[in-house]
């Protein structure tokens, strides 16, 4: 197991490097220059410009610039936000817990909905329940998060006036009252993201259970006289969930896309809304930092899924 772990960790390094190369290439290929404004500013003499360019290594060939950038990133020097005058890493670290909390809660909600519904649908394939649920799942899958968010705001904030539609990071009050307000403002972002994820996950669960349900060991379990409940919960679901773990991890890039939209609609102060505001104010270091963090999170999720998969499925050999 530990050799598998080490091997898997080692595979992660080239992926991370690959992603950093990809991001840096995009940045290097892009037209425009961080000193573009200096060049047009007549108050700065050309010698000073040239000295500045040399100091920041802008005239070096691209591979050298990449190495400089990589070394700086590894040292934790992620640059300096042009707009808020704070180091990029502090800015991201401030916002990251909110994003992870929203995504985590949405995943939990999605699992709570998708697991029972998907299993029930697969236990009786092509029954009325299955057809209705599958149709709804396809609809949930086709409803973009920004549209569900807007509909929820229309119904629950504007028509019914039950829930606030702007997320506040600085809620006043304390104790039980504070928790209740926090809960109320978190419902809609989490539900929007959770239902979108749940719809896709339900399809995964259903097809995974369908794959397992007709296998011979299930028939054996039934013929032993086990109650149907035990057969489903102990024999079928356990094995069906193994591929679902991988599929959930593969879904992570889409989840981050959904999280950015949700944070933007409800103004949740996470790294997704940080990315959007950074783009609007041309804050390149922050944009690069956030994109890199998102990529790292995806890779981390894949790594966790692989490790979990190896632990859940004893048939996997730890080569």
């Amino acid at each position, binding site marked *: 197991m530990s050799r598998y772990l080490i091997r898997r960790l080692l595979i992660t390094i*080239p*992926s991370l490097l*690959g*992603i950093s190369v*990809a*991001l840096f290439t*995009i*940045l290097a290929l*892009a*037209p*425009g220059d961080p000193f573009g404004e200096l060049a047009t500013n007549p108050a700065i003499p050309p010698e000073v410009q040239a000295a500045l360019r040399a100091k920041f290594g802008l005239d070096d060939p691209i591979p050298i610039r990449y190495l400089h950038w990589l070394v700086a990133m590894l040292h934790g020097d992620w640059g300096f936000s042009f707009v808020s005058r704070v180091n990029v890493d502090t800015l991201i670290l401030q916002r990251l817990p909110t994003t992870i909390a929203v995504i985590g809660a949405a995943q939990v909600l999605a699992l709570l909905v998708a697991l029972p519904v998907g299993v029930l649908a697969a236990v009786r*394939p*092509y029954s009325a329940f299955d057809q209705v649920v599958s*149709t709804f799942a*396809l*609809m949930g*899958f*086709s*409803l*973009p998060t*920004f*549209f569900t968010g*807007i*509909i929820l*705001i*229309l119904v629950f904030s*504007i028509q019914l006036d039950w829930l606030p539609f702007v997320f506040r990071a600085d809620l006043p009050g304390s104790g039980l009252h504070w928790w209740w307000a926090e809960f109320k403002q978190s419902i809609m972002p989490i539900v929007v993201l959770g239902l979108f994820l749940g719809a896709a996950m339900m399809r995964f669960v259903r*097809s995974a259970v*369908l*794959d*397992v*349900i*007709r*296998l011979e060991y299930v028939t054996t379990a039934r013929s032993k006289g086990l109650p149907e409940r035990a057969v489903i919960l102990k024999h079928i679901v356990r094995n069906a969930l193994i591929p679902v773990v991988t599929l959930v991890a*593969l879904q*992570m*890039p*889409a989840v*981050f*896309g959904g999280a*950015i*939209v949700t944070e*933007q*609609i409800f103004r949740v102060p996470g790294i997704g809304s940080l*990315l*959007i505001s950074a*783009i*609007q104010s041309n804050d390149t270091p922050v*944009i*690069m930092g*956030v*994109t890199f963090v*998102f*990529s790292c*999170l*995806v*890779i981390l999720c*894949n790594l966790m899924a692989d490790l979990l998969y190896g632990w859940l499925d004893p048939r996997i050999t730890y080569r």
Partner: protein
Amino acid sequence: MAGSTPASPTVDAAPVVVRATTRARQVTPWTEAWRRFRRHRLAVAGAVVFVLMILAVAFGPLIWRVQINEIDFTAQLQPPSWAHPLGTDDLGQDLLARMLYGGRISLSVGLAAMVVSIVIGTIIGSIAGMSRGSIDAALMWLTDLFLSLPSVPVLLLLIYLFRESMKHLIGAELGTFVLIVVAIGAFRWMIAARLVRAQFFALREKEFVEAARALGASQIRLMARHILPNALGPVIVAATIDVAAAIITESTLSFLGLGFPPDIPSWGRILFDAKDNLDVAPHWALFAGGAIFLSVLAVSFMGDGLRDALDPRRVI
């Protein structure tokens, strides 16, 4: 490890009975697929709706001749009426005209991005599938790398960096269109590539390929003439899903304010403009969001039906 549960009730349909009359009706794989597709009622409905939407946005502006940028401050934020069937926005612009125009953009972005992603995916998948060893491994590493890039942040980054220069190069409308289509396509080809590679692996040792090779067919001819046509089924299904995903991605970008500029109202852009007036003019957001939802749903149902019709073994 699939058991005997069919992937869908329609796939195990009775085999085609070739009539024993002197001249049997010729059943090509395509007529067979069409027959199976027709059985999937929701898929047929999806196809009808999607075709109707394409016809509406293609010919609608010829019939409904209101300009999309005709500003009328006496008719701001009006609910639907006879003069403005879908109401008006905050500048008094007619929403029906804007929706029809926006549909042209949203649907053509979806279709064009699909073509880009399928072409890239098919090329990379075929190369990986025909070559063994290091080329295949390198291409698959690249595919996995792209699969683990979070597409929305990277797309936002791409558009942020290249938007201005594309505008200067070929104009605001075409520039944004090309940029968005290429960017979406460049981050959606991975699934097609994997499918094509898997099909190549399954097909390249088959007898008919062996026979063609024995007859002296070149590598290119083997790929283009013998293997690719047989790998088409899953690719068509992937293409349908790509159309839906591209429509959603474009509206997401526009909704975040980073897609098309305000004077080019794609559906996502209309929704972006509408979201600040939800309390006074909910119709504005509902029509735009509803159009996105309906088109994506129609394409998804079509994809479901096509999967059953073309790809009974259900390759994911």
